[in-house]
């Protein structure tokens, strides 16, 4: 990289014999290409190749010696667990994203409401769940949900509500994984929405107030249209991350009880790595691609739109 750029410092003394090569190396586009080369290699070897390789793996049998075509997919379609995972993944992602967005939106407004000098402190506190590595904070939740020593049940017992099997009962386990995901992800929405709120010109609110708009009309006609792009991008980002979530479900329930809380990622891990059936695991994880692709297309469209507006 540095070598490629070196000749430009002394262009006048170019030797006649190697001037062709040197001219090529001095060209701006050549230097740029070499500067971006490590990035391209990394993406090609560690991202693009594995992505296509997983499609190839999905067409092999368990011992990876025979081509079975769509056999793995056909096998999955016939399994009840698979459809449960599809259902749970979609339910998990959509519910969690909606609540994260709502909480983020409300809390961003609350922070925006208070005087500027206090905002930093509150923002700092509210962002803590996002900073703690999810694997670590989920352990705290696992302990809060502990079957015999649950700190929640201790509080609930004082108001006369019987012990709840937070991770033992299928319904509650689904609730628990979503709750933890909301807890960990809402601060991201908060910070994005707060940044968007700050960028809405104050004059718009003044104009709306003069026109006699109430707070609801101000949100509906001023805030939301101005934040539309950020809301869309943040939601789509979060949809991808939530849909592909692994850490929280893995640590909290490991998919249980009876595979009721498995997501594509955790089930693929169970089958592919722990169950040693790499092709079937690859097939499961490939089912994430359609949703990710749709979200990615919309994000890209919004980001390009932003670029054109600027």
């Amino acid at each position: 990289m540095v070598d490629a750029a070196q000749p430009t410092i002394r262009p006048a003394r170019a030797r006649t014999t190697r001037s062709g090569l040197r001219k090529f190396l001095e060209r701006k586009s050549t230097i740029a290409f070499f500067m971006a080369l490590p990035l391209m290699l990394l993406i090609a070897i560690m991202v693009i190749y594995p992505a296509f390789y997983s499609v190839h793996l999905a067409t092999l049998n368990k011992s990876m010696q025979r081509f079975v075509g769509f056999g793995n997919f056909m096998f999955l379609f016939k399994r009840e667990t698979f459809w449960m995972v599809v259902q749970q993944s979609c339910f998990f992602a959509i519910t969690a994203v909606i609540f994260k967005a709502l909480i983020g939106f409300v809390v961003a407004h609350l922070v925006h409401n208070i005087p500027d000098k206090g905002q930093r402190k509150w923002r700092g506190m509210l962002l803590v769940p996002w900073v703690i590595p999810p694997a670590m904070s989920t352990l705290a939740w696992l302990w809060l949900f502990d079957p015999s020593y649950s700190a929640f049940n201790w509080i609930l017992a004082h108001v006369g509500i019987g012990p709840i099997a937070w991770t033992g009962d299928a319904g509650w386990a689904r609730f628990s994984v979503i709750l933890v995901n909301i807890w960990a992800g809402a601060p991201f929405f908060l910070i994005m929405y707060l940044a968007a709120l700050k960028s809405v010109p104050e004059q718009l609110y003044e104009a709306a107030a003069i026109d006699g708009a109430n707070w609801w009309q101000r949100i509906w006609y001023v805030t939301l249209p101005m934040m539309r792009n950020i809301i869309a991008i943040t939601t789509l980002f979060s949809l991808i991350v939530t849909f592909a979530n692994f850490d929280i479900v893995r640590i909290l329930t490991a998919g249980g009880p009876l595979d009721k809380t498995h997501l594509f990622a955790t089930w693929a891990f169970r089958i592919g790595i722990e169950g040693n059936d790499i092709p079937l695991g690859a097939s499961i994880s490939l089912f994430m691609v359609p949703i990710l692709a749709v979200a990615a297309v919309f994000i890209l469209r919004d980001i390009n739109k932003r670029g054109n507006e600027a």
Partner: protein
Amino acid sequence: MTSMTIDKAGPSRKARIGSMSRDRKWAMRWSYVFLTLFAIFFLFPPIYMFITSLKTSAEISAATNPWWVYNPTLSNYTELLTSNQFLTFFRNSALVSIFVVIITMLISIPAAFALARMRFWGSTTLATGVFLTYLIPDTLLFIPLFKMFATFAQWTGIELINHWWVLIFVYPTLTVPFCTWIMIGYFASIPKELDEAAIVDGASWTQTLLRIFVPVALPGIIAATIFAFTVSWAQFLYPLAFTSSVDQQVLPTGIITTLIKGDVFNWGQIMTGALLGAAPPLIIYAFLMDYYISGLTAGATKG
């Protein structure tokens, strides 16, 4: 603008503004009430971690008030910080994160510079491609990567699986696309005159990058560094899939696989370990919050 409209509206308008500011005061009070409730919701798990980390196993199993410590002790901390096993996890995590940050910066800063300033064939496609790569989750790649490493070992005899350093090669797939993406944004915001002047004065492209772009975009580089560090420190799926021996684990997987033994949960130590594992990102965040947040928001707002 405001004063003008008030003049026009006359006294009746003034009264309304008075009532509005009273509304504001109430809105603010309610804001504080609800903010406190949300702060409690967001902060009680880490606080509970801290409370539990100060308890002895005896106190935990006695099932006294879980939200209070009757006999606070630091024994969990001293035990973990003197245990070789835990220190190995910590060392592995630190080494992996530091190397990943260095590799990420070495790859993404020149690439972002080339993509932001020096057009070449396919550079716009590559910029979009970098962004798309950032959207590909780790959960899609761990199975093919696992198989690739196994095949690599068959061909070359170099065993990649179950060595902590393999993570140094894997994590950049998570950090480089995002860091390149936000660095493109930061570099693009630097006025063109600055590098044109440098080039006219005879600086090479490398010199322009190192002497002008890196110093000017330093806040962006710090934000990207923090991002790369936090991501590598927190990553859980790859170490879980690629490392299994105790001495090869990093913190997140190490705590879970060694401190949770069958049905015996030593919760005091688990919470202490989790808290110590969460400490480095939290400390960085406490001191460099603004960089942290600017990196977070830049990813989606700079385009």
